[in-house]
Every structure is written in structure tokens, then in C-alpha cells.
């Protein structure tokens, strides 16, 4: 599927309407022959962004490779809800080893395939933000610097959801988690901590780094397809809202993912060997309040008296992202 600027959007969402596209321009998910790598019957919560993200990514990877994908999965929600023995939702070869070693397991698989001359079979490593940014970070960085032939996908729901919503280094400032409760002088997660995994991946100057969300399926699938065209270490960071951990309605998963982008809180970009080559422009900038309010993890910022000062700091962070990545669409962008 080529990537072209599509001018037909669903009213209010800017999502591309598949029905208005030619068949070959539609998403993999919209095709009857999609492989359903993560098939129905798994035990994810209603509205789980990670379940959507994993299926979108792997179905696209399967299509891009002619179904030649092996997956190494970190411990976490995705692993637990998909493989309660003796059931498995995976319709592709899949291994779970440990919480912190999915990138290294993926490296080992890729090395085995290379030694056996099976270069047509591709390897995807995947995990949540805790498994990727925290406990698995050394293995991830090692996989990057060796330029191992692995696409690693982080499904970022911004906390340790599987263990009951504890803070990770991907948890945003002010967010309530089980160990950053809205108590004390600085309610919720503190400012000035955490790490930006996509930018750290970028600093490894690996062939491909991209961010995406489950809200823009065309963009996400395009990035998977692009990643599978390349060899060497590749990193895809997908924002996947978690209704349980975020205290959001199950029906709001896609809306929140879109708002994370439109506020500037989650910059969507792609990069080639350490250089940012494209950013997804914000077509309708939303204030961060629109994103924060529907989530109970930020409830302590609102009401009486609320913490408008904290909301302002979050807005400042979003504004900084917008400046840093040039996220606002201007007239010239529209005329392209």
C-alpha cells in the first residue's frame, strides 16, 4: 500500500474512512484476508488498546512478509491475556520467555534464522512500556546497538497495568497510579522524571524509529510495513490507552489516543538512521484539558479547587513537543 495524503476523513475524527477508498488503499484490518494473528477469545479488558495495537501491528507485519513472522513477547498484560494455558490466541509462532528479555530472545531467534539461512522469516519482539523501558531496557539497547535484525514494538499504556497500575518510566507527570496516588504536596506522578524511549532509540541511529497510536490505523500499518521493508534494528512505539489503568471509558480508547496526538502530548513521527524524516501534523489542536478530563487518573487536577497550575505545566509540556517536532499543520502543509 502506498502512502498518499488522503483527503477524505470521517466527520469529527479525521480518521480515514475505509469505505471511501479503493480496495487496495484500505487498511489490512479492513481486509477479509487479514491474518488475525491475535485472534478472538483472549482475555483482554473491554476497550484494551494493547490488544488492538498488537493485532494491528502483527497483521500488518504478516501481510508485509507473506506470513513469515516469529514473535518474542515480554511478560505483561499482552502475554497473560493471550496465553492462559492451555489456550493461545496467537496464530503465528510465538514465544514468551521473561519480563526483561524479549529483545534478546528476538536477537537469538534472528541469529538462529540467519545461521539456518532462513532470511525470509522475520522477527518481531514486543512488550509493554514497563517491559521495554524499564526492566528490558538493557536488552533493548543492546539489540539496537548491535543492529540486530529485529523489529521491536513497545505498546505503551504508560504504567504497569498487569500488576495493578504502578508507575513506570513512561507514566506521565501528575498521573495517578497505585504508587503515585494523588496525595501529598505533588499529587500523582512527579514532574521531571521518566524517559523518552523513542528519542533514546533515535540516539542509537538505528535504521528505523517510529511512533504511532491505535487511533490512526493507516499510519500505524504504514509504519509496520516500512519497518518490514528494512533490515537491522527497528523500533516502533505505539501509544495504547488502557481503560482500566487510565480510568477511562472502554469506548474512549481510540478517542484518547487521538487526543494524545492532537494535544501534542504524544508526538507521532518517523526517523531514518537517527534523523526525523516525517511528523504527523496536528490538524485540530486540542488543549490538554480535553485529553486529561475523561481520565480518572487525572481527576485530582479538576473540580474544586483543582490544580490549574499542574494542568498548565502539562500544557507547557505539550507546547514544547509541538515546537520541538513542528507538529502544527500550517497553510503550506495543507497545500502540499
Amino acid at each position, binding site marked *: 500500500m502506498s502512502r498518499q495524503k488522503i483527503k477524505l476523513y470521517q466527520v469529527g475524527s479525521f480518521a480515514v474512512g475505509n469505505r471511501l477508498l479503493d480496495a487496495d488503499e484500505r487498511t489490512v484490518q479492513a481486509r477479509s484476508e487479514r491474518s488475525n494473528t491475535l485472534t478472538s477469545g483472549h482475555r483482554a479488558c473491554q476497550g484494551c488498546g494493547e490488544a488492538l495495537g498488537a493485532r494491528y501491528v502483527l497483521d500488518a507485519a504478516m501481510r508485509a512478509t507473506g506470513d513469515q*513472522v516469529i514473535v518474542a513477547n515480554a511478560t505483561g498484560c499482552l502475554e497473560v491475556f493471550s*496465553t492462559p*494455558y492451555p489456550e493461545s490466541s496467537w496464530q503465528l509462532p510465538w514465544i514468551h520467555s521473561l519480563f*526483561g*528479555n524479549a529483545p534478546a530472545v528476538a*536477537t*537469538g531467534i534472528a541469529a*538462529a534464522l540467519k545461521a*539456518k539461512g532462513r532470511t525470509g522469516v522475520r522477527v518481531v519482539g514486543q512488550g509493554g512500556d514497563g517491559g521495554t523501558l524499564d526492566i528490558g531496557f*538493557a536488552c533493548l539497547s543492546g539489540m539496537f546497538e548491535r543492529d540486530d535484525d529485529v523489529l521491536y514494538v513497545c505498546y505503551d499504556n504508560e504504567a504497569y497495568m498487569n500488576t495493578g497500575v504502578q508507575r513506570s518510566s513512561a507514566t506521565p507527570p501528575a498521573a495517578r497510579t497505585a504508587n503515585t496516588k494523588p496525595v501529598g504536596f505533588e499529587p500523582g506522578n512527579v514532574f521531571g522524571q521518566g524517559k523518552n524511549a523513542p528519542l533514546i532509540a533515535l540516539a542509537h541511529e538505528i535504521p528505523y524509529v517510529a511512533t504511532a497510536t491505535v487511533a490512526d490505523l493507516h499510519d500505524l500499518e504504514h509504519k509496520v510495513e516500512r519497518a518490514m521493508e528494512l533490515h537491522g534494528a527497528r523500533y516502533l512505539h505505539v501509544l495504547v490507552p488502557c481503560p482500566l489503568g487510565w480510568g477511562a471509558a472502554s469506548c474512549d480508547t481510540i478517542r484518547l489516543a487521538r487526543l494524545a496526538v492532537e494535544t501534542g502530548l504524544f508526538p507521532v513521527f518517523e526517523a531514518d538512521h537517527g534523523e526525523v524524516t516525517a511528523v504527523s501534523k496536528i490538524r485540530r489542536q486540542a488543549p490538554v484539558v480535553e485529553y486529561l478530563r475523561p481520565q480518572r487518573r487525572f481527576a485530582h487536577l479538576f473540580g474544586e479547587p483543582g490544580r490549574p497550575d499542574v494542568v498548565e505545566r502539562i500544557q507547557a509540556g505539550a507546547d514544547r513537543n509541538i515546537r520541538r517536532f513542528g507538529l502544527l499543520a500550517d497553510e503550506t502543509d495543507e497545500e502540499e
Partner: protein
Amino acid sequence: MRSQIEGSQAVAAAVALCRPEVISAYPISPQTHIVEALSDLVRTGRLEPCEYLMVESEFGAMSAAIGASAAGARAYTATASQGILYMAEALYNASGLGLPIVMTVANRAIGSPINIWNDHSDAMSQRDSGWIQLYAASNQEAVDLHIQAFRLAEAVSLPVMVCMDGFVLTHAFEPVDLPTQEQVDAFLPPFEPRQVLDPAAPVTIGAMVGPEAFAEVKVLMHVKQMQALDVIGEIAGEFAQAFGRSSGGLVRQYRSADADTVVVALGSVLGTIEDAVDELRDDGVSVGAVGITCFRPWPLAELRAALDHARRVVVLEKAFAVGLGGIVGQNVRLALEGLPTRVHDVVGGLGGRPITRASVLRLLGDVLEDRLEPGALTFLDLDWGLVQRELERPFGPHAENILRDLAAGLR
């Protein structure tokens, strides 16, 4: 071909003869010469097809081996000391998944205090990890055990550690008979995995197992280890036929069949013990030695048969369970259940302190003249004065205080 060669070089050559397809390595003394030599072999094309991964940690090394093995490749790594602890979580994973990875452990002490020299604390710490553990008494045996280890691991679908004493063996130059590629190929067929990650036949490996089946999966590991007791003997027998020398097996007996007093030990110290046995035998003393080649699975029946006639058994080991005492000693007692044998637990060689023939003779003199308190834990060549002084001191870091006392000649 027989050559005068460093232990690490010999083991690297033996591993290469086994045609590993993926080698992952993270450097730690005294394992380094093994993985350096393998790197040379891969880079010069003498070992191919083989992917050599220089990973970021021992945890990464074992994890990459897990991925490689699950994808159907013969996988190998080597480590020691802190490295084996750093990969501990992955060790349990490899055995639980039934992946036939082979790993050399260049046995080294575990800190703190940090120490690079030989003892068995590292491998012993993982005795319950589900890995088969073989201990080499010499560099020739280290070579032979590696060749048998791949065969064994793949026969029973369990990972195998080949333990060889760090520096004492890894860095020692000895005459070693290295087999030819044809001999090893005839002995070790290509790896046929019982499970493999393959898009042509997708499987899920590593599912979550609850109370309804967890025990059965774990017991399966135990049963496979128990089966390995037979397989190890069969493989050692075939090895002897194919290579013309006997190596491996479960236990090795040295002038112990009629011995009144038997020393039990693992690894390279057996050479020293056997020399001491010869010396005492020359004086008409009824002593012998039994080496444990296979520590896991525990060769209970074989050991009982080898020791049941002895009046005294001295277990001389290079590790101990802090707060309890001997590790191998406890296992030996299990094998002697119901017999009147007197078992002495002796710990020596910690952190590289040499176990000399003189100290073994001194120890055996104490044993033979009943100077060792029954049931007490004995530390070979220990300076109790240094320990006592530090116990009386209310302040300061222990290791530094003891070193200062030692330098000042205080006891």
C-alpha cells in the same frame, strides 16, 4: 590429536567441533579465553554456519540462547560467578522451556567481597535451576564433557552446564587429545528440536500455567533429570567406544572400592586428592577418592554403591550454604541414609585458596585420628584468628579490616 594447549582453547575447539549455530557471549573472567577463541573461529570462517552475538549482559546471553534454541539452533554460551547469578532468571526459564542449551561455567567465587578466583559457589547457587550439572576434573575431561553435553542436552531436552574450575583448568596448559571433526560428527548428529518456532507450523511457547498444571510441568523436569541418570551412562559408554577413552559418567572412583576412608569431591581438586590417596596408600592407609562428575541430577544410587562400605566419608567442597554448612555434604548424607557411615563436611578452596596435597594430607590425618568433631563443619586451612578479631571489632568494613590485620601480621 594430542597437543599441549590451554584449557580454554581446548574447550573452545571442542565446542566448535560440536557445530553450534548460535553463540552468545558476555565477557567475565575466567571465561574470557573460551569465548575469545570461539570469536576467532567464527570470524575466520572456520566455524560456520554460526552466528556469534556479543551481548550486553549475561542475562542477554542466556536470553539470546533461549531464542536461538527455540528457533531450532544449537546454542552455546559460557559464563562464571556474578554472570551466572545475573542470568539466574533466564536459567530457570531455559530449563522450564526444555531448551537444550549448553553452557560452560568457568567456576569462580561470588562476591562480596569481589574475588575472581576459583570456587564452586557460582554453579552451586544454581543447583536447583533444572540444569544438568557436570563437573570436569581435568581439561581432557572438560573437552570430553562438552561433546557429551550437547548429545545429552538434546537427548533429554534439558540444558546442561559443564563446570570447569576457573584459572585452575581454564588457564592451565595440559596435554589434551582433541578429536577430529569426523569423530564428533559421527557421535553428535545434527540438532533435531522437539519444538521449534516456525511460520510453517506455528506454536505458542511459554504460556502461563496456573495451579491446575504447574506442578505437572515442574515434575516433568524432575522426571527428565532422573531419566538423564541413565542417559548419561549410555552416552559415556558410547563415547568411550567412539573415542577410545572413558570420560564422563556419573561418578569416578579412585582406589575407593575397598577403602575404609573415602574423600568425595568435585572438579580439579580430585587430582590433588588422588595424589594424596596414593601417598597414603603407599603407607598402607586404606583411603580412596570418589569424584562426582554429575552433580545434577544427583546420582544417589551410584554414590551409595560407591560409598556404602566406607567407615568414614570426607566431603571436601568448594562452596557452602551460609547458615547451614556443606551443600554436597547434605546430598552425600542423603545417599548414605540408614548407614552408620561417619560423614565429615569440609569446606576449602574458597575464593581461590589453594587446596594443596599437604593440606589434604593434614585433613586426612585429622580424620584418621578422629580429631574432627563428628557433625561439625570444618573449614580447611582457615585462619580463625582473623575471623575472631573481626568479630570482636565493633566498626568498619569487614573485608578491609581483615586485610589490614593480615598485612600487619596479626592473628
